[in-house]
């Protein structure tokens, strides 16, 4: 993507709204890239330009070397829009099968591809139920299944964990890890910075339509040079021993905080235990 600008015409009169301004970005194959930024910063517009759903007002965008507005650029791309919804009268299997056929999955491999995609996102048991009976999280997973069913090289995910419970978000992180291990390129936008930091190789920050940061997570993490040391709860005299030991090695203990239960961890443990007991 080189020098991409996107202006939206005003509804009546007045100046055009500039959603993206001179954005130049290259996403290396096999990387997991997180796109972050405040609301209205141009994240979804950028993703839509990559997918050829919007035409840039200026600049060029190429996917796998093909201009993004051409149909050929979308071969090998899977896309999950923000808060997807589906026709409630159709079943999950019917919907994913339809998207597989649109993505030119051969008829002889259709059944296996659909069942495999549904299995990866964990809704095999509900695949013959109508989508109207699915929860919000299940619809999100169904959206992911339709993106995965064509076995894409590039996955573009717009706010994939918005409206998803912590268990779903945790599963999403695991899935992204698996995509990375399989050599797929993943580009996703999110407001959840801890998750972006956890699963991404690179972070791209947009603000007011401008690209303000494009760094690897390792680079960003190493910026302050500080390291945090987490230990199991210690009695006070052990803490003094630790302080003295660090001192002998030229390090200082700057802060000691009491151990607090992490709400997310408590939630995951409780829900995970309930799920195990339920099964």
């Amino acid at each position: 993507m080189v020098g991409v600008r996107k202006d939206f015409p005003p509804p009546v009169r007045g100046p055009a709204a500039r959603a993206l301004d001179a954005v130049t970005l290259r996403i290396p194959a096999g990387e997991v890239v997180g796109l972050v930024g405040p609301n209205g910063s141009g994240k979804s517009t950028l993703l839509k330009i990559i997918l050829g759903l919007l035409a840039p007002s200026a600049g060029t965008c190429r996917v796998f070397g093909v201009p993004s507005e051409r149909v050929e650029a979308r071969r090998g791309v899977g896309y999950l829009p923000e808060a997807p919804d589906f026709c409630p009268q159709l079943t999950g299997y019917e919907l994913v099968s339809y998207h597989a056929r649109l993505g030119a999955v051969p008829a002889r491999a259709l059944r296996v591809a659909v069942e495999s995609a549904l299995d990866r996102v964990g809704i095999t048991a509900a695949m013959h139920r109508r989508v109207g009976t699915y929860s919000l999280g299940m619809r999100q997973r169904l959206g992911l299944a339709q993106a995965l069913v064509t076995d894409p090289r590039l996955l573009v995910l717009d706010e994939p964990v918005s409206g998803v419970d912590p268990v779903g978000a945790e599963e999403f992180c695991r899935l992204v890890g698996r995509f990375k291990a399989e050599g797929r390129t993943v580009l996703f936008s999110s407001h959840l910075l801890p998750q972006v930091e956890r699963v991404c190789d690179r972070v791209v920050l947009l603000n007011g339509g401008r690209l303000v940061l494009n760094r690897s997570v390792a680079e960003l993490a190493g910026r302050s040079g500080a390291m945090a040391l987490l230990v199991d709860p210690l009695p006070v005299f052990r803490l003094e021993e630790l302080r003295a030991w660090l001192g002998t090695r030229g390090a200082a203990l700057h802060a000691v905080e009491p151990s607090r239960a992490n709400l997310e961890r408590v939630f995951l443990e409780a829900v995970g235990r309930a799920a195990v007991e339920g099964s």
Partner: protein
Amino acid sequence: MKAREVAIARIWLIAGHSFRKAVRQRLPRLLLVMLGASWAAALVLRDFRLGSSEIRFLLDAGFGAEAMFGAILAVVATAQLFFGETERRTVLMVLAKPVRRAEFILGQFGGVLLLLLAFCGAATALLSGLLWWRLGAMPGAAAGAPGAGPLVVFGDVVLCGVVQWLRLGVLAAVTLLVACYARSSLFAIMVGFAVLVIGHLHHLARDFYELAGSTWTAAGARLLSTALPDFQLFNVADRVAAGEPLPGGLLVGIACYALAYMGVFSALAVFCFQRREL
């Protein structure tokens, strides 16, 4: 496979999917039930037929109800299908795959045409069944009066259903064009019904201005009547109800007229949709 064959296969796939979605919604079933109810009412009220024969009364009521409920289905289902895709963002998932916008719109239109075909087919079959039953209840009625033709020519009833389908197809194409430009389904539905009313009446305005208006108003009226389809041309039900035969030339002319308007309106819909910011 050649690119054109692939494109046709994708249009067919989208049409089949759209048809499946539409047919599982409540609207077509509700309209079929209402159609049946209106025919049942016609049966109950057949004693108030003001001198015409019972069969003619049933044919009039049957074709009239089919035209009305079919028009509702054509306008509302087209708008619902299109805005269902845009509001649920499924259109983004479809177009993020190697699918052209033109294929998407033509597939949507194909799905509506299949839905309307199913509706007209079911309505024609039900009406034929109803007429068959009433003819059976009137000894000697099937043969008609001596020297005259039969009271009902079932082949013409079927042809009337085909003409009805073509008329609804043109109306659906107009609605799809408006939907591709509009931002709300309500607007598309209202404009669709407005075009339906204008399409039934504008020949009166054209005739009036050609006789009484200035050259400019006559030209304006002629332009309007060319731009919008004349739905009165599809009115062959009166002939069938009157027991008159349907000439083949008339049917071919109607089919060509309908296909031309469907082609132009769907091409314009593709043009609008290609410029639409999603």
